[in-house]
């Protein structure tokens, strides 16, 4: 069985993020890392194989040169190989264009099960898994908090964590499954695993390799344009008081003044 995990190299959440002149996220000047939410998908793939599933795990990322660091991190957690789609024309792609690149790369790679995180920690849209599944005519299950694969039946059974209910969902393979942070803690790779990951194969593909024309992606092909990006108005500095036994009364007074009591 072929498992492909979609992973994204994102700006470090604790870094000072900013916009570049073209109103895209400045990715060149900010430290990056493998998205924490994709680490849960990596973990699930590795656990499936550790649990006895006969599968090869490939990680797929789309991003600038440094995005390969995200692949190495994933490979240190487990798995077999990496694919990096890197092309300057991809810069500024929206979710629709990104999903096109991912779908064409998946077509070329071949897959039975695609795993990914519930969202990226930068754009946080949570729409790319659905887009990729729809383009590939694959089954889609998002917000999975647990999954099991039945290779004989060719199905994946997922616990889907919705707002009002938890569903048990059975999907036919090939399928795209996006997992939540409830699926299980991601492991910390040991030093030896990190060293071993450096020897695992990583292939780089360009848009030409995928048969995608540069005018189908990037800022110019974007279906939505950013017209303005500004810092949110600073919250007005409030009062900070130190509890000297009367803080509860003061909070209650505040709530009364504001009409909450």
């Amino acid at each position: 069985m072929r498992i492909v995990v979609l992973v994204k190299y994102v700006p470090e959440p604790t870094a000072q993020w900013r916009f570049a002149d073209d109103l895209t996220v400045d990715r060149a000047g900010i430290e990056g890392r493998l998205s924490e939410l994709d680490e849960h998908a990596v973990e699930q793939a590795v656990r499936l194989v550790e649990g006895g599933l006969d599968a090869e795990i490939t990680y797929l990322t789309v991003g600038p040169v440094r995005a390969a660091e995200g692949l190495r991190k994933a490979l240190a957690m487990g798995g077999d190989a990496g694919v990096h789609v890197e092309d300057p024309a991809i810069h500024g792609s929206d979710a629709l264009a990104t999903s096109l690149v991912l779908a064409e790369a998946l077509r070329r790679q071949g897959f039975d099960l695609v795993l990914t995180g519930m969202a990226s920690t930068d754009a946080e849209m949570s729409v790319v898994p659905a887009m990729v599944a729809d383009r590939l005519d694959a089954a889609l299950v998002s917000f999975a908090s647990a999954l099991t694969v039945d290779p004989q039946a060719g199905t994946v059974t997922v616990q889907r964590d919705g707002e009002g209910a938890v569903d048990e969902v059975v999907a036919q393979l090939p399928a795209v499954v996006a997992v939540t942070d409830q699926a299980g803690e991601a492991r910390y790779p040991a030093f030896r695993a990190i060293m071993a990951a450096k020897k695992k194969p990583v292939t780089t593909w360009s848009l030409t390799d995928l048969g995608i024309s540069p005018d189908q992606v990037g800022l110019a092909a974007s279906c939505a344009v950013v017209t303005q990006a500004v810092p949110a108005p600073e919250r007005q500095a409030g009062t900070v008081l130190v509890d000297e036994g009367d803080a509860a009364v003061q909070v209650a007074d505040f709530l009364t003044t504001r009409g909450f009591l």
Partner: protein
Amino acid sequence: MSEVLVLVPGAADAVRSSTFGLLTAARRLGEPSVVLVGPDDPEAVRALGEYGAAKVYVADSPELAEYGSVATAEVLVDLARRLAPAAVLLASTRLSKDVAGIVAVRLGSGVLTDAVDVRPGSRGPVVTQSVFAGTHLVDSEAVRGPVVITLRPNAVDPEPAPVPPAVERVEVTVGEAARRVRVVSRTAKASSGRPDLSEASVVVAGGRGVGSAEGFAVVERLADLLGAAVGATRPVTDEKWCSHEYQIGQTGRTVAPQLYLATGISGAIQHRAGMQGSRTIVAINKDPKAPILAIADLGVVGDHHVVLPRLVEEIERRTQ
């Protein structure tokens, strides 16, 4: 005036304040037409008309619940192709993210998620999003439409604008693609009897500083006194001091209540991302350097275990 398609994924959703906010936002962009998944319950249709739904397209088939987001997306895509709406609006929920993604691919439309504001612009709808953990606001316009927008709960205050809604039943055909995913069982999450977290006007939330399940119980008592929803940070739900359903932040719910009262919460960026849009923030934390105190309208440097029980007593005394 162009129609604006508004997805209401179930009859129960028809009477939710988030739906009324969605209809109020839709009226800014055109004439709201609801796509109601489920039976055309007269109460639901009446409530939708109260907030300006001139048309209600009813997609009623048990298969929609069984086959989920693809089937629902296909209903929207068929209607959008027929009606060429100015926009397709959905509430920001987990289901709607899937639906929005599929609709955007099929229509080749721009998709803008988690909007905090929408308004008409010279080229079509202008959508404001809060990004980088709530530190920046971004305005976007769709180049190719109809733009698909998901709107955060409480982003737009509901305003009634009664019209008599015209009901039209639409045919539902669940295609091959939708049939590949089947819901085999559904377990409804236990109801707390409190307001829905995403829509509540008051939220009382506890963080690591509450120390234990007992410490969290005081958060719940205060919430019940205020008629509030209960929230928590990820460490608290990881420790199982409360249900995972209460988690607020990047991987939990996003809230924007009138009042957010935080206790024992330091205000890590992942948590702030989920509550930064609150109108008034009150925060209690032992550490004077806790980042949440810097964004609070009223901050208390104090111990949860001391301040919160006293606050419960004080409010009980005043509201008796």
